[in-house]
Every structure is written in structure tokens, then in C-alpha cells.
């Protein structure tokens, strides 16, 4: 990747400009309910959820070099765990937390087995475990509701007994809850990938043997990365049932595992923001095409082909490698001299 040092736009440093844009984006996100209305709010929630889902996936693919094709299994663990608890205890926090924990525990157990392999066998193993979870969700009627899934999940209030209680029945309140949780999760993951831990993961991706020669347990780091990926998938899944009030088996199906892969490769695999940009593009593309035809998947398929053939680095890499140098050449030279 090209160095960012010395890049300046309109005389400002790259870092400053991107921080400013980020701040602007967050402010806009906070005013979506006032500015836009219900449907964009609903869309924004789905984009945020897919972003968290795909970011967790990309910690494995982009940073650790492991292609997981069973992330939907952990997503479903989060969703079913949260839904099940919300039906029993109508309170938001216990629901979300138990969904995330359930996914995390599942990820530790399955991760322990999965990290014994890399590359295609890792992908096959994760696919296999994901489909195992799917088959349980689909067939184990008494636990999961089978085909029909869990229905009538309440959007329970956010409360800590005796301290506060916020009603979540309005979409707007739940939007702020999802927004804040997702922003915190994304910020935390950013800290993680920029930490020494994140650097070691990237080292494992680039040269497994060198990292292990320097005395690092590759397996432990892979397991931790796998668990974090599972926790993030679980968080994404846990945020869904209060929004949709229902959870169904297709959430665990492998075609759903393809969604974070798609979002990540759409946005760009080697940049932190790639999966978020990809998640945004995914829903925007869907939204635009559905206005013209119900057959939006065929258009998505064509876009996927064009993407893989045309820009395998993802959209963000094009932005970083082509657009910013162009802007610098076009404008920055003038402001410097």
C-alpha cells in the first residue's frame, strides 16, 4: 500500500481530513431520524448491523488470512440466543448480552477445532459447522421453532432495574441504541487491530512461520481472532430480533455467510473501513435495483462478477490508490507553493 505520509488535501493532512469526514459522518448518522424518516432509519440499522458482521469477518480474512464461510452460524447463535431470552425476560440488555455470549462460547468451542486448519480446509470446516447450526435451527422444533423460527419477539425496553428504563417501542429509540452499540463496537475493533495484538495477526497472515519463530503461539492468536469474529457476528445477530421481531433458520444458512464476504470484498479487504463501505454499498445497490426490478439478485450477481474481474482490491483501495493521489496532484501542489 502507498504511504500516506506527506499526502495533503487543500493543505490539510490526510489524517486531519479523514478524521473530519468521520466526525461529519457520525453527526449525520445521529440526525438520520430527524433528517430522513423511518425507511432510511431502518436501512441505516441494517447497514450498521451488516457492518459489524462484516468487520468481525474481516478481522479473520483481511487481518489473519482465514476465510470463514460459517459466520452466519454465529450470527444465528446471537439472534436465536437474544430472541429466546427476550421472549422469557422482556428486557433488552439481558437479551443482547446473552446472544453475544452464546455466540462467543460457540465460537470458542468451534474455533478450537477450526484453527487446526488454514486455507481451503478452514473454509470447508467453518462452512460445515455453520450448516450444522443451520440444520439444528431448521429441524429442532422444540428449541428453535423449526421452519417458522421464533416469532413475537418483543422490542423490550432498555432498563437496569431501579436505575433507569428507556422505552424501545419507537423505532427511533431503538435506532439510537443500535447506532451507539455499533459505533462502540467498531471503535473497539479499530483499537484492537491497531494494537500489538492486531499487528501480530497481520504478521500471521503474511508469514506464519516467522511469527511462530519469534515465540508467538500462532494457534492462540488465531483462536482469539476467531472468537472476536464470532462475538461480532453474534452482536450483529443479537441486534436483529428486537428490530424484526422474528428469527428464522435462513439466518444460519451458508448463503447468509456469503453476505459479509461480499461486503468485505466489495469495500476492500486490506482496509479497516472496507467492510463498512461494502455494507453501505450492498444496501444502496439493493435499494436502487429493487426500485426497477424484483430480480435484484441477478444485478447483484453481475456486479459481483464485474467487481472480482475488475477491481479485486475493493472500492476503498481504488479511493486510496487512485483518487487521493489524483486530488493531491491536482490541488495540493498549488496550496503547498
Amino acid at each position, binding site marked *: 500500500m502507498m504511504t500516506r505520509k506527506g499526502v495533503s488535501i487543500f493543505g490539510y493532512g490526510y489524517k486531519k481530513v479523514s478524521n473530519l469526514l468521520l466526525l461529519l459522518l457520525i453527526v449525520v448518522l445521529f440526525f438520520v431520524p430527524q433528517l430522513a424518516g423511518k425507511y432510511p432509519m431502518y436501512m441505516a440499522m441494517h447497514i450498521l448491523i451488516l457492518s459489524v458482521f462484516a468487520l468481525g469477518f474481516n478481522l479473520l*480474512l483481511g487481518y489473519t488470512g482465514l*476465510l470463514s*464461510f460459517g459466520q452466519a452460524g454465529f450470527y444465528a447463535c446471537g439472534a436465536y440466543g437474544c430472541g429466546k431470552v427476550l421472549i422469557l425476560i422482556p428486557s433488552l440488555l439481558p437479551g443482547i448480552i446473552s446472544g453475544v455470549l452464546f455466540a462467543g462460547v460457540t465460537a470458542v468451542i468451534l474455533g478450537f*477445532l477450526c484453527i*487446526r*486448519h488454514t*486455507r*481451503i*480446509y478452514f*473454509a*470447508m*470446516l467453518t*462452512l*460445515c*459447522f455453520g*450448516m*450444522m447450526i443451520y*440444520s*439444528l435451527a*431448521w*429441524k*429442532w*422444533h422444540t428449541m428453535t421453532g423449526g421452519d417458522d423460527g421464533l416469532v413475537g419477539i418483543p422490542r423490550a425496553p432498555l432498563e437496569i432495574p431501579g436505575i433507569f428504563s428507556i422505552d424501545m417501542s419507537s423505532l427511533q429509540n431503538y435506532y439510537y441504541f443500535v447506532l451507539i452499540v455499533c459505533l462502540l463496537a467498531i471503535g473497539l475493533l479499530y483499537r484492537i487491530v491497531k494494537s500489538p495484538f492486531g499487528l501480530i495477526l497481520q504478521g500471521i497472515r503474511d508469514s506464519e512461520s516467522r511469527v511462530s519463530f519469534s515465540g508467538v503461539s500462532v494457534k492462540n492468536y488465531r483462536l482469539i481472532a476467531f472468537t472476536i469474529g464470532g462475538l461480532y457476528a453474534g452482536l450483529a445477530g443479537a441486534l436483529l430480533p428486537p428490530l424484526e421481531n422474528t428469527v428464522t433458520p435462513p439466518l444460519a*444458512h*451458508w*448463503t447468509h455467510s*456469503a453476505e459479509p*464476504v*461480499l461486503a468485505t*470484498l466489495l469495500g476492500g*479487504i486490506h482496509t479497516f473501513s472496507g467492510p463498512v463501505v461494502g455494507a453501505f454499498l450492498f444496501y444502496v445497490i439493493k435499494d436502487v435495483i429493487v426500485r426497477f426490478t424484483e*430480480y435484484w*439478485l*441477478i444485478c*447483484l*450477481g*453481475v*456486479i*459481483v*462478477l464485474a*467487481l*472480482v*474481474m475488475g477491481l*479485486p482490491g475493493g472500492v476503498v483501495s481504488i479511493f486510496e490508490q487512485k483518487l487521493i493521489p489524483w486530488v493531491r496532484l491536482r490541488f495540493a501542489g498549488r496550496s503547498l507553493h
Partner: protein
Amino acid sequence: METLAFQGLVGLSLAMYLWLIAAGLTIVFGVLGILNFAHGSLYMLGAYFAFTCYGLWGINFWLSILLSLIGVALVSLVMERFFLRFIYHLDVAYQLLLTFGFILIFDDAVKITWGGVFMIPPMPDFFSGAIPIFGRSFPVYNLFIIGAGIGVAIGLWLILERTWWGRIIRASASDREMAGAIGVNIPILFTAVFMFGAALAAFGGALSTPVRVVAPGIGATVIIQAFVVTVIGGLGNLKGAFVGAIIVGVLTAYGILLFPIFELFIIFVVMAIVLLLKPEGLFGG
């Protein structure tokens, strides 16, 4: 006792469908080194093509199957020549994504052409009816499927082991560069092998039309079954795929009988155990 024996026969006919799909997948992986997620969709296309020829236009059953093979082979020619060829060097994630793109395209294309409903075409007369085996009646068509599956297995074995083409394919599978160096035209070979694998999938799809549901989206289900079979037998291993298909088919048949809730789950448990203990498959290595 008779029930168990009969169910074994049911499993065997199920296994032959799986074998036909998995054979093409595993040959393509063995030679080209790519895992084709759209292989199940080629099966679906084969089923729809055969259904159209036989069920809608009233063409002869055998001719319908042949036409469907040719049609799917042509589709796969376009896939390989204009798309897959350019991504052999890319990471496996991109191969999965590209072939996933084809699944989306084929699924919607089928919906646009034939509508979203599933359909079952009529059974050819000479295969209708059932014969008594183990005190129950077993459909004649399933016997035909078992025969066809074994026939394909023998045919593939003869092609690979006894012909010049087979030697070229085996040589390229074990060392692509060396085969290229001694004069094998690798790009043409890759196209040919991919079309051959696709035609095998189409054969499975075409044979399935009279008895199994033909519906958009079955590709995503079928490909997982094919993955299970090929992984159990060893990716790229043809003999393994045959045995894997029998294991999965028979296990499914008994699973439905004995523990219907966990029938699908058990298949994946077997797959996971093989992957964990012997990732190269029962017959690999």
C-alpha cells in the same frame, strides 16, 4: 430387518444422485484447482433444460437429456472462457465470490424464464411403476438411477485410466506446469474439463427431473450436499467421491428412518470429523 434392507436401497439411489453431482465438482477441483460454488446451479440448469425439452416440448426423453447436457456445457464454456480463466491465480476467497455471483445470476435467470414455482414433469412410461423388493414396492426409476450412477462410475474410470485423454487429465492434475512443458495445451484442457464437469452436473439434474422437485434455488442446497460428499472422499478424488456419496446417501436414508430431527446434522458431523482427522479425505493422501 426388511425395512432396514429396503432403506439401504433407497439410500443407494439417493447416493447415485449425489455421486453424479459430486463427480463433476471433484474432477474440476482436481484439475483446475478451483472450488465451484455454482456447480449446484449447473445441476439446476440441467434439470430445467431437460424439463423444458421433455415436459414442455414433448421431445424424446433421451434426446432431452442429451440436449440439456449440451446446453449446460455451453453455459459452462462461457463461464470458464470469459470469467474463471482470469482468476485461477487469485485467492480462494475471490473464486468463491465469483462462483457465488454465478449462483445469484442463474437463480434469478431461472425465475425470470420459468417463474418462481416448482414443477414436476411427467415420468417416461417405460420407467413408471414399481417392482416388489424386500416386501415393498421400489420405483423402477430409482433402479434406473442406481444403474446410471454405476455406469457413469465405470465410464469415468475407463476414460481416466484407459484413454489418452485420461492420461493427459491425470498428468495435468498432478503437475500442471510439467504437463504444460511437455506440450499439453493447458487452457484448452481446462475449458474441456470444466465443460465435462458441468455436463456431469447437468446429467444429474436432468435425471432428477421426473422424481425430484425442480425449483429455483435448489442449487444452493445441492452444492452443500456435493461439498459434503467430496470432502468426505477427499477433494479432487474421484474414487473417494463415489464412496463418499454412498456413505452420505445411506446415512441419510437411515437417518430419516431412525432420528429424523438430526438426520441432516449427522451428515455434517461426519463431514467435520473427516475434515478434522483426515482433511485430505478418506481416500486422499
